[in-house]
């Protein structure tokens, strides 16, 4: 993990609030693995407001070019700031942070379930799994077709996928969790990785309660440090029969066993 400044090679607008930023960084390309994230300073040099860094999953790594990318949604002040950066500007970030996903011990079948911007960190998992010649299926659900441009990225991976939108404007109409439920049998011996809104994760937790798929969720929580010192980013995990403990998303995660997560 290092504090870095990397040149922005592109900051492409995918749709109204969706951007993909490519950053030159040999260090990240060499050291990062799928599932990890970077922590980005989202204010001009020397400026301390907004104060905190923002975490973003690593969307893609192109080792050959020493370029990695992040796919991000403009939500508030921080993401608004970075959406205004241009190629040639420098990005102040740190990484790679969090634990990477080790696909070696896995089933040969991988199901990725993404909701909204939750698809971002799953993309790199899909790519890596594909390169390992695993059988990968990506189920992605959205409100509308604002992520349409992302389908092009997905097609490059040459994996099977299904897109669902709530308004039916792209792919099938419906919720991705319903899709998973309806196709339960086809994903019998799949290891599952999911990332997305709380409600989606809750539903998936229910769906997979009594099944013995290995289901891993990539979680989000507001962060201060991103390196494990502040205990600001905790999520509640089951511990023993009735107990719980708080685990840090930044250091113990961001991937957790979905079955252990307590959503209250």
């Amino acid at each position: 993990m290092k504090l870095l400044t990397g040149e922005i090679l592109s900051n492409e607008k995918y749709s109204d609030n969706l951007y993909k930023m490519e950053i030159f960084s040999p260090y990240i390309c060499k050291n990062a693995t799928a599932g990890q994230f970077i922590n980005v300073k989202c204010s001009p040099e020397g400026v301390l407001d907004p104060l905190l860094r923002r975490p973003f999953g690593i969307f893609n790594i192109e080792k050959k070019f020493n370029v990695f990318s992040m796919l991000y949604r403009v939500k508030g002040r921080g993401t608004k700031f970075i959406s205004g950066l241009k190629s040639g500007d420098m990005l102040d970030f740190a990484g790679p942070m969090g634990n990477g996903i080790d696909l070696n011990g896995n089933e040969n079948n991988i199901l990725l379930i993404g909701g909204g911007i939750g698809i971002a960190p799953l993309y790199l998992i899909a790519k890596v799994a594909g390169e390992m010649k695993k059988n990968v299926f990506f189920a992605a659900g959205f409100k509308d077709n604002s992520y349409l441009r992302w389908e092009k990225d997905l097609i490059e991976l040459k994996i099977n996928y299904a897109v669902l939108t709530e308004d039916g404007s792209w792919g099938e109409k419906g919720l991705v969790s319903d899709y998973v439920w309806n196709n339960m049998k086809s994903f019998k011996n799949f290891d599952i990785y999911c990332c997305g809104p709380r409600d989606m994760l809750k539903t998936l937790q229910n769906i997979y309660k009594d099944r013995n798929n290995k289901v891993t969720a990539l979680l989000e929580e507001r962060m201060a440090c991103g390196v494990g010192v502040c205990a600001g980013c905790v999520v509640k995990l089951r511990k023993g029969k009735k107990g719980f403990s708080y685990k840090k998303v930044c250091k113990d995660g961001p991937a957790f066993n979905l079955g252990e997560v307590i959503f209250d």
Partner: protein
Amino acid sequence: MTEQDSLFSYETDTGGNGFSLSVRLGRIKLDNPVIACSGTFACGLEYSQFYNTAILGAVTTKSYSLKPIEGNPPPRICETASGMLNSIGLQNDGIDIFIKKHLHEAEKLGIKIILSIFGQDPEEFRKVASRAADIKERIIAVELNLSCPNVKNGGMAFSAMPDEVEKIVSSTVSILNIPVIAKLSPNHQNLVEAAMAAKKGGAEALSVINTVVGMAVDIETFMPRLGNVLGGLSGPAVKPIALAKVYSLTREKILPVIGMGGVFSWQDALEFLVVGASAVGIGTANFIQYDVGEKIIEGLRNYLKEKKIYDINEVIGRLRT
């Protein structure tokens, strides 16, 4: 580890050319006045990925209690204008794990440790101090986090009650017989009395300020932005408040002060020194600029060189009023 090596040699180099950053707070001697604040640096391990944290004047640990504490429900963090609120709820592994595990790791890195402890009542403070007795040669001081609520006394913070402050400080001093720092809260008006009580109790220095009580509301959900409703404000926003609190103490020359609150740059650190702080704590800044401790030490060193000031003590307390 070439980066760390070069840092080390850099330090010796400038150490040798006659510009001294060393400060003393009673019996506590520091190579430089830059200290990592409790709760913002763990025990220094994580930040050692970014620079050699052994160069810091000292690292104050997360505050430890007798038993592990799970802390407050999330969300625990919320950004505010030039600041942040936290309601970690003093989550910690308990003093025993510190002794068994974290201290050892910090020692391996050569980090100078100030151990921060707290309790829910004076009795717990006493017990934690007793556990720390075994390792007292391995730490440079104990800091008492007196901003935590006194559960046996209506939940009001210890530092609001001078009597309690004196009691806890003196019992710790008698148990440990190493330098004790009293960390006081800015949320009470009787800061000066609390400081005098700490002195009476035998404290070596004061740490000021802890976070300022604050809150924020999510106007979408009408819920507080923190799971615990109230939290502690830190960061640049509180710097003017911290400086005024430190000044209220240094003006009275009660005890040496470790000034903290919103320090992000060597210039900020210098403000605290000029106001009379003998050392400066870096808290929230660590979350944003991971190598800020190193940057501030360098900045202060360059400042001395540029101004041809041979001893940092020359600037401490030199406010012109």
